[in-house]
């Protein structure tokens, strides 16, 4: 059997050589000091016993006036269930009760998911009377997974809904997967789930560099993290700990996870305020535009045109103005407010630095089909045809022009 090992090592050597040639290995910058430091020496917590053994948990409490960035945690109770469910686009959340809701975030051994990705830290926050409580369940080694899941399960059974950031595609399926792998049943079947990532994207993707939780909490909540550990390093820190039994670097991971959960709470209130009363809750035209767009997607055109108009009062880049004008022209059209729409299409033609086809087409359709004003329709199409940059739609326009001319002739005949 030594033979096999010898050969394996030879193969490994070869693979290393090839790697050396193909690409230089990425250096991972974590210093190793081989000294066993237990988790309870690094973060204060306790062991709770479960049918599968002990599980380590840290508890933190936050009082009524605690602020996360600029937002008080308890402000969340002013958010209406209606706003939450519409932000989440999930009817099950219409009855959401904040005191029956958990704020959830996990730390894992990988970001790709799949059966070999483990959860080693589950952070769960919830309101309990006058305070907000965060419990962080930690797995000291792989053999404690069932204990961890069992402890988490016990807590979750008290709740009806989840708030997370990207939890719908990552954390929650992974939790389900871990329960299956451990042959256990999760006490939270199909909960209402408010995943803040999607509304955050709808609200801020036009303004922020990206919509990661850390960007959103920095730019929207004003949270400043100190000594934060970047998410991509988390798995490596855990593996290091497993190998060296030195838990010191994990402290940062606990803090990181804790902050994520507090940010979730603050973000819910921030989002609700923003959509309930946009004009008093943001100074950014782009935010108001985003809110108009949200109403647009919900087919609430009266509100959407209102906010588009408000957004246009801000100083915005020309290309954004054109986009807002485009959206609002269609929103007016759908409301049957043709005059307003016509006005905007004309404005777009006026403003736009280069040829844009659709306003001509829309105007022509409006004159031809709604007003049956064939003369006016003819003028618009002929104008579009005189524009040289317009190469691709010539055929379509010519066809339209012929039809309009035909109608015009027919009308003239009927009149005479």
């Amino acid at each position, binding site marked *: *059997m030594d033979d*096999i090992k010898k050969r394996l090592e030879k193969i490994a050597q070869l*693979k290393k050589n*090839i790697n050396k040639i193909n690409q230089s290995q990425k250096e991972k910058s974590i210093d190793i000091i081989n000294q066993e430091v237990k988790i309870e020496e690094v973060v204060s917590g306790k062991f709770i016993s479960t049918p599968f053994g002990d599980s380590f948990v840290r508890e933190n409490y936050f009082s009524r006036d605690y602020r996360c960035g600029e937002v008080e945690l308890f402000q969340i109770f002013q958010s209406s269930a209606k706003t939450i469910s519409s932000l989440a686009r999930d009817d099950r959340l219409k009855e959401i009760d904040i005191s029956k809701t958990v704020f959830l975030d996990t730390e894992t*051994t*990988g970001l790709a998911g*799949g*059966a070999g990705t483990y959860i080693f830290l589950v952070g769960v926050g919830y309101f309990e009377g006058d305070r907000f409580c965060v419990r962080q369940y930690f797995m000291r080694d792989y*053999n404690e997974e069932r204990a961890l899941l069992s402890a988490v399960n016990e807590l979750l059974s008290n709740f009806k809904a989840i708030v997370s950031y990207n939890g719908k595609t990552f954390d929650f399926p992974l939790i389900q997967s871990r329960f*299956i792998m451990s042959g256990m049943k999760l006490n939270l079947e199909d909960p209402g789930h408010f995943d803040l990532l999607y509304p955050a994207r709808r609200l801020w993707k036009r303004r922020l560099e990206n919509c990661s939780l850390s960007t959103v909490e920095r730019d929207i909540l004003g949270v400043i993290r100190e000594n934060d550990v970047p998410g991509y390093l988390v798995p490596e820190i855990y593996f290091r700990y497993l190998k060296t039994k030195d838990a010191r670097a994990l402290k940062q991971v606990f803090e990181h996870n804790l902050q994520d959960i507090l940010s979730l709470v603050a973000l819910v209130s921030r989002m609700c305020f923003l959509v309930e009363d946009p004009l008093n809750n943001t100074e950014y035209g782009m935010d108001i535009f985003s809110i108009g767009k949200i109403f647009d997607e919900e087919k609430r055109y009266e509100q959407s045109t209102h906010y588009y108009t408000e957004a246009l009062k801000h100083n915005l880049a020309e290309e954004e103005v054109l986009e807002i004008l485009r959206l609002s022209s269609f929103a007016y059209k759908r409301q049957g407010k043709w005059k307003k729409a016509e006005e905007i299409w004309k404005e777009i033609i006026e403003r736009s630095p280069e040829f844009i086809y659709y306003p001509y087409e829309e105007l022509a359709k409006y004159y031809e089909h709604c007003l049956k004003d064939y003369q006016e329709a003819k003028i618009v199409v002929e104008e579009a045809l005189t524009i040289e940059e317009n190469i691709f739609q010539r055929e379509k326009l010519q066809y339209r022009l012929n039809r309009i001319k035909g109608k015009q002739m027919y009308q003239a005949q009927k009149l005479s």
Partner: protein
Amino acid sequence: MPVERILNELKKYNKISSRFTDWRHIPAKSGIYEEFPEWIEDKLVRVLKEKGINKLYSHQASALEFIRNHKNVVVVTPTASGKTLCYNLPVLDSILKDENSRALYMFPTKALSQDQLTELYQLVSALDEGIKTYTYDGDTPSSARQAIRKKGHIVVTNPDMLHLGILPHHTKWMDFFVNLKYVVIDEIHIYRGVFGSHLANVIRRLKRICRFYGSNPQFICCSATIANPRELSQKIVGEDFVLVDNNGAPQGEKNFLFYNPPVINKELGIRKSLIREVARFVAYFLNYDIQTIIFARSRLTTEVLTSYLKDFLVKTGRSKDIVRGYRGGYLPGLRREIEKGLKDGEIKGVVSTNALELGIDIGQLDACFMAGYPGTISSTWQQAGRAGRRSNSSIAILVASSNPLDQFVINHPDYFFGESPESAVIDPDNLSILVSHIRCASFELPFEEGEDFGTKKLRDVLEYLEKEGVLHCVEKKWYWMSEVYPTEEISLRSASVDNFVIIDITEQQEQVIGEVDKASVPTLIYEGAIYLHEGEQYAINRLDYQNQKAYAEKVKVNYYTNAQDETNIKVLDVFDKAEELNMEYAFGEVAITTVSTCYKKIKFYTHENIGFGEISLPPEEMHTTAYWLALTNNISELLELQESENTSFNLSNGLLALANVLINVVPLYVMCDPQDIRAVSEVRSPFTSKPTIYIYDNYPGGVGFSEKMFELRRTLLQAAQELILSCGCEKGCPSCVGPIDEVGIKGKESALLILRKALS
């Protein structure tokens, strides 16, 4: 009947009939039928009867009975003998009996799974019992995936998707695995060598996941004719199998003809062009409206032949659309259209690469041409099997090229008809492959002490991976301890899946007309190439290597292009070496570089060379491991021997001959397919400065064959010697040193002399 008429005419016409080196009649055979067994659900029987299937063939009945008795079954019968019913019937029956029952179908390619699904879908919709069948592969939209996992009764996929997309995410498939009753592996003969060794390990992983969910599926495999289907299935699945080969399908009379094109230059031994001979033949067949398939050995030949046949049709005033090309690189929609045209009979001729050798349903055709020997006995029978009606006569014609192997086979028909088809060899315990899959399996589920993975090496590998820091052992369980997805680093196939697309920019509206795998770029779509697509010519104007796009414009020129490439081997590192007797042996790391330097413009029809062009492409480089042996005798001594009078020694012939024997011998000892290794011989190798034979693993990174060859160096040479000595041929044949046309008249003797020096 047109086929009979053509056969008579061929016989009558002396000038042609003399060029047939063999003409075999395979007599017609009537069908052997059995009633549907009683246990099959009535509803299913009714649907089959409505489709005109009133009875089962004997092999189908046997397969059903074995499957009912919980045996794993491998079915080996010719093309179009109703193999698919052998698995569709029991699978559908089990779902009708238990709505929760699930089945996994596996086909080697996406094209095949699409095709099978169409057939299965007809049955399922006729049943109208809400049975859901889906393909699940790289093209499945993510929005559909969840429904497939939850509701699919039959999921059709390929090994790569099982490896990459299903097993690592098995928790999402819980309901499926809990209820998995049958696993179907069709075309199992494709999984030979390294590919087969990979599949065997993917199946080990699959079975392990099934065990986790408490299921124990039964396996049903189908294979083309190879020497060892039962053994191959047993090795891949790791369980006992029953072989079902009592073919009961009726078969019309078949004619198998061997044709050698005439010599047109006696001095140089040049024969008439294979392509033109085949085109002429097929044109003759098309005049009689005989539906014909033509197998060509390369994509270029496929296209050139298609062009010739289309030209011919136009000249004779017929629609050029009744002949079509078919090969990898055509877009799926186009392929479906061609397959349908063949079934409908609207298409009279199809020129294909071996892409149509597998079970894609194109119905049965009247005639089959093989433009060049397909390379193996097994493939030849498989291609010939494409022609063959149930009741009428059919004809298969092998046309030889002037390549030595073709010439040998065409002149020794008994060799072909007498030999058994090739064996498929795999080695599931190949260390490098095994380690890769143990990594994947650890990701999927931690290993426990004493667990069974079908190999004795498990424990050692786990401990090794633990030492490497990839696994973490606690309480005798090995857990995955890495962020990376092990499956993504492991490809089951040697060829990369990277494709270049070809964009037609003739019209304003750009259009993708085809794709080409990365390895074929230097031979097919270099700048200046004429890319042939369904008989149309496109000039490649620009190749955007970085973005993997080639821009092409329709042209009309009188030539096509053929790239010249050369392969070089460079030793990078020596891992071990030994010197014994007159030889030195070594193995180590090498770089294999293939580079295209120029292309020839070849005139249509006359095939004369009318110009050259340069190709400037980065060389394709592969790092792998190689084993080599070098003669330590002084080269000048050897050359002297070669010059001496009455000598039967020729150094370069001898090296080539010995390399050929080794390629024949090595697979049996290192357990691989001949395609998995390559040999290069050099009279004076730049690295060793000696006459040298290199044999390398034809896989990036190597799979450990070279090391095994080094260890077995003496055994291999002895086996080579024995093989040559016991071969009945006079001066060489493909079974030993290779055909004389390739290794020369002195090849066999020279190889023996080298072996004597090495072994005496």
